[in-house]
């Protein structure tokens, strides 16, 4: 069922990207989609995201807002004359509460695109995310911010 739905969505996306909604093009897109899905069939998991559109939407909104804020912050920092004084980089160990690969990946990607933080790597046991930050006045506050912001939202969407 999910497979058929995914193939349909892929066919529509194919038609949209190639820019022609003709019957032949839709069939071709569907065929390519089915092949792609067959190649990754082991990895298809239940798309819980579809069920929680509202929460996923609010996460996306928070993300776009944070990305804009982040880009402006970094731009201002880079252009400031006393750059070396304002720069206080650090690599922080962030204790993860989310557990699955999908959640960790999403959190790591969101962290990279938001103010002053960049994911370096996950520890081997997947319990700690190492985060590089541009300017860290307060280590514990940074951890609290991530845990209360993105991580909390991700847990709501995936729970």
């Amino acid at each position: 069922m999910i497979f058929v739905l995914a193939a349909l969505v892929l066919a529509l996306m194919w038609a949209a990207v190639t820019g022609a909604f003709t019957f032949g093009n839709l069939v071709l897109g569907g065929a390519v989609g089915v092949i792609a899905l067959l190649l990754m069939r082991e990895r298809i998991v239940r798309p819980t995201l579809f069920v929680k559109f509202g929460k996923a939407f609010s996460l996306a909104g928070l993300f776009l807002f944070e990305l804009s804020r982040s880009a402006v912050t970094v731009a201002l920092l880079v252009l400031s004359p006393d750059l070396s004084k304002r720069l206080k980089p650090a690599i922080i160990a962030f204790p993860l509460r989310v557990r699955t690969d999908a959640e960790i990946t999403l959190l790591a990607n969101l962290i990279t695109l938001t103010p002053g933080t960049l994911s370096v790597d996950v520890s081997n046991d997947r319990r700690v995310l190492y985060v590089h930050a541009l300017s860290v006045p307060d280590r514990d506050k940074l951890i609290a911010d991530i845990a209360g912001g993105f991580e909390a939202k991700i847990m709501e969407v995936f729970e």
Partner: protein
Amino acid sequence: MVDVLQYVAGIAMLLGGGFALTAAIGLIRLPDLYTRMHAASKAGAMATGLMFLSIAVVAFDGSVILRAAIGFVFVLLTTPVSAHLLARASFLTGYRPADITKPIELDAKDIE
């Protein structure tokens, strides 16, 4: 109405160019790879997003808007991954962060 859209597109394009420029300045001014990835990933993604927005507004055509949106999503998915891989690879090969970086709560053996 068309005029307004043209102006919106122009402003978005200029803003995007501005962010791309600050990303480039950041690459020169920041002290090490880790801090440079901040400038490249964030300002870079923002610049690409604004330029896609500009293209979408100027074309004002369903398929172009959809393609611009998909392009932006791909940038958002791939930029953090490449930043993360570069940072990880540098750390594992022994490229230390700049001296002002502290604390460093990461040991190469934790992520090998």
